[in-house]
């Protein structure tokens, strides 16, 4: 836990799920989305009542959320999830700090 986000395991009914919900200290805006897009393949469904985005980092890691909301849900692989989670959290912290630095 830090002052940039809080994280908790996303409980669900899937086999071997390694999903975590990150509540960010600021909402996910277009600028943050552009930065996230650099991490992988981003899909944004703007036709939904509340636009939904999904970021495929690689075959094992996926991030998703709702635009202008504060929650990111990240899924990691069954075998390597701890290392992936650690790396993801470092990247996420760097991204959030960079958002603050530019005062947006």
């Amino acid at each position, binding site marked *: 836990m830090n002052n940039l986000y809080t994280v908790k395991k996303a409980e669900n009914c899937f086999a071997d799920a390694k999903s975590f919900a990150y509540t960010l200290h600021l909402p996910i805006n277009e600028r943050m989305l552009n930065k996230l897009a650099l991490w992988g393949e981003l899909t944004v469904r703007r036709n*939904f009542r509340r636009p939904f985005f999904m970021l495929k980092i690689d075959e094992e890691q996926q991030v998703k959320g709702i635009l202008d909301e504060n929650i990111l849900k990240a899924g990691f692989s069954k075998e390597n999830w701890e290392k992936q989670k650690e790396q993801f959290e470092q990247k996420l912290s760097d991204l959030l700090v960079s958002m603050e630095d530019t005062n947006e």
Partner: protein
Amino acid sequence: MNNAATSYPKAPGVAHGMEHVLKQLPGHGNRAVFRRDEENLSCRTLLARLLGVADENRIVYTSNATHALNIGILGFPWEPKDIVLTTAAEHNSVLRPLHYLQKKGRLHYEIAPVEPDGRLAPEVLKKLLLKYRPRMLVVTHGSNVTGAINDLPKLISYAKESGTVVFIDASQTAGLYPVLPEIWDADMVALTGHKYLLGPQGTGALYVAPHIELEPVFTGGTGIRSDEEEMPEEMPLRLEAGTQNDSSLSGLKLALAWADQNPVNMTELLDKIYQIEATLTLVGCTVIKVAGARTPVISFTSEKYNPEDIGDILSGSFDIICRTGLHCAPLIFPYLGVSNAGTVRLSLSRFTTADEIKQVTIALKEIFSE
């Protein structure tokens, strides 16, 4: 759209009635003869009426169906080498107590395969009864994944021909379809109050036929025979240690009374399921098809998104709450032709409106439009 898990809203009057009970002096179950324990007795009477049970003392209050199933399975007088037959459609509330007892060496259980809609075929049961000669059959009345209703009168009659004790899980059907253990000759029935009975969470019941004697799983205060070390023989107290959840039982009582006056229109309810099914088919989803009697439940998958993503989109983008994954019934999916990612399940209530169905239809079309 998650009523197969917990119904919402509750029957009219339930919340107000529970608040009223909480504001009254608490009852003194079996401990104060000059006070009437009317709330609990009335609920038990209505449960007995719902199940067509002659003696309401055979109805045991429980916290939910899981609690009831545990009391029935863990408390049953098992003998060495007993075999239990259950089905691939069962919920973990059946599978885990059986697994626990198998691990302890108290019994061995076998899983009966189900049809692609989740039903146990009577002919399959007949063969397995001959093969295993089980002491008990534990079977759900309706699948919580597909909604398919089992032909219980026929299944029970086959089991009885083999001298097998029958334990029914009516979690998904009580409040929608008749559940009649004494007419069908079922030995035990577990049900919950918080699904289609439209009562509060924390309520449920176990019917135990007069010839079945269970050992208490929980022991403690009963308000009678306090000088004895053992739990009293009298039912239902033998299986009801501790203070009851009076406020929730009063809520369940009110829900049962309301439903008695307002029978559910299954044709109208299932028409809504068929509307959703038509939309899902139109947008290219794979629906778990169910012919014949069913609950207002529909399960589907898509090649475009996995079930978890669909659930997240429905809730996050459209405020539609559903259930995704294995639905606590992990063994059923191979029989449905579905991977271990499970399904998306939409489950309606008698209060689901035409407008809500329209909103679901719009959302599904938008999600699967590209």
